């Protein structure tokens, strides 16, 4: 009996597979991918390889010396660089402050709008509220520069009316960093609100209704009904903000230029300065490689949460 099954299996294996349509399908599926792969290789893979290559060279545009292969020296230099370590840790402090504030405010405002799903003019109110996050950071920082200006700015006008000394937040050593966090919070709190609304929207209506009928206390409602559904989207929101805050460059560059001193010098700003102010292309590429790996790690975490959500829903 066992033997006959074995032979049967073998004979099934020996049957030539219907290969032709399979390979034709394969050809077609890759053909459809070809244009995207073309752009991907030309405009993503090639520059990445180029960047990896540059990172091993001593290459400064302004120096007369020819680019020289120096192995891992750029990486060691970069790891030993105190100033850069400073901007990395500053970026993390910035990230932490900005994201905690934005998440907290975002959730509060999100719940407010969620509770008010029938308020008059909700769509217009949300439009006004969401505007800060779609304005390009260049415009945002210029706008705030105008508003915070020590002599012309409208905020300082009110400060002086209230009888206080006018202050220049953007060049003040202690105030510059909090101001950057503040402007970033103004820009991105709406995003966390948007994510909160989406997270709350992902809770099935039936479960909410059941909880309402059972008169579930608020804390248990959040813990047992809302949180299990909402945590994924909220997590994705926080992670996206992390990624974005870590990329912050235009905002800080125009608003404070990294100053005063290095008080608001975030990692992306340093990087830009290395490349386009001191033209150390090799060195800046080494830093870029480091940032690339951070970005890939963050993407992996992001997809992990996304998949966890998919699994939980099934």
């Amino acid at each position, binding site marked *: 009996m066992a033997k006959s099954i074995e032979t049967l299996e073998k004979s099934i294996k020996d049957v030539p597979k219907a290969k032709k349509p399979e390979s034709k399908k394969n050809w*077609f599926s890759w053909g459809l991918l070809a244009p995207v792969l073309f752009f991907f290789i*030309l405009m993503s893979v090639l520059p990445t390889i180029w960047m990896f290559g540059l990172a091993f060279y001593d290459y400064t545009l302004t120096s007369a010396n020819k680019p020289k292969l120096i192995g891992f020296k750029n990486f060691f230099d970069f790891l030993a660089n105190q100033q850069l370590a400073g901007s990395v840790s500053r970026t993390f402090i910035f990230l932490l402050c900005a994201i905690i504030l934005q998440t907290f405010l975002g959730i509060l405002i999100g719940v407010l709008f969620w509770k008010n799903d029938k308020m008059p003019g909700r769509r217009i109110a949300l439009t006004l*509220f969401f505007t800060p996050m779609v304005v390009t950071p*260049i415009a945002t920082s210029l*706008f705030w520069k105008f508003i915070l200006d020590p002599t*012309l700015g409208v905020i300082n006008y009110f400060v002086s009316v209230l009888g206080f000394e006018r202050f220049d937040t953007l060049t003040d050593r202690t105030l510059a960093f909090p101001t950057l966090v503040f402007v970033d919070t103004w820009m991105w709190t709406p995003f966390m609100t948007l994510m909160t609304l989406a997270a709350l929207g992902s809770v099935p209506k039936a479960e909410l209704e059941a909880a309402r009928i059972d008169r579930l206390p608020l804390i248990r409602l959040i813990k047992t009904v809302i949180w299990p559904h909402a945590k994924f*989207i909220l997590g994705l929101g926080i992670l996206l903000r992390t990624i974005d805050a870590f990329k912050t460059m235009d905002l800080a560059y125009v608003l404070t230029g990294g100053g005063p001193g290095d008080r608001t010098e975030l990692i992306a700003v340093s990087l830009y300065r290395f490349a386009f102010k001191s033209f150390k*292309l090799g060195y800046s590429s080494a830093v*870029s490689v480091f*940032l690339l790996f951070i970005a890939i790690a963050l993407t992996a975490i992001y997809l992990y949460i996304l998949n966890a959500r998919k699994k939980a829903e099934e």
Partner: protein
Amino acid sequence: MAETTFKAKRKPGPIRFATLGAWGISLLFFLPVAWIISTAFKPKESIVVSPPVFFFKPTFNNITEALSFDNTLDYFIHSIVYSFGSVTIAILVSYLAAYSFSRYKPAGTDFLMFLLLSTRFVPAAAFVVPYFQLFNLLKLKDSYIGLIAFYTMFSIPFSVWILKGFLDGISQRYDETGLVYGASRWHIMFKVILPQVKPGLVASFVFNILFVWNEFLFNFQLGGAKTFGVPVGLFTGSTKGGAIDWAYVASIGTLYVLPLVVVIYAFQKYLLVGLTFGTVRGEV
């Protein structure tokens, strides 16, 4: 009718208060932008004065003056050309790729999707050097071809992610039925399936335009006088001659922001999917 009576019965007290709060917060967040818009309509002499002017006779002088500068209009034209050009190409090629990912799942689909997404998560400043050199080498600097190629890749990850999401939601039965009836693959892709993912196409079109429209660093480094867009124009135009020309910033800023406000109003339901690069869909 029944519904209206029911509505009227609802307690107006706390809801009113919350509504007021929500409106108040919205206005508070919009206030800085509103201040810039109002500045654009102020008479020139009352923009850079020490107690700020709150009441004034609106005038279009600043805006017409800003537009009369040599390259202001050019910035807008450049922005429109490269953003619409690249996003159109990106959506076309992304649809093909997303269809392939969704229907045939070629080996490495997940990995490719992962790589595509990660390209959008790298700080722009990290990549600008290799692009800068590559563009110099290939003589693509300050050319539409170069910028459009770059922005096409810039728009592809989001488009692929969002279109794959929508395509996965459409039953394969449509494809199978089409095949049984002898329709060609192209007919199925473009005549049967494409109309069903319209929301995905709209969302990726609108938001990629928005992202490309807002992009600064690459346009600044890879472009030139012939291809600089609005953000670069704002940046360089604002610092002409040392001091910042606030009338110019406010006028161009206003012309720049108003279309964005209209876009958010019109496409609010796509905002979520747009800002999460097509990875999250849901209601707001």
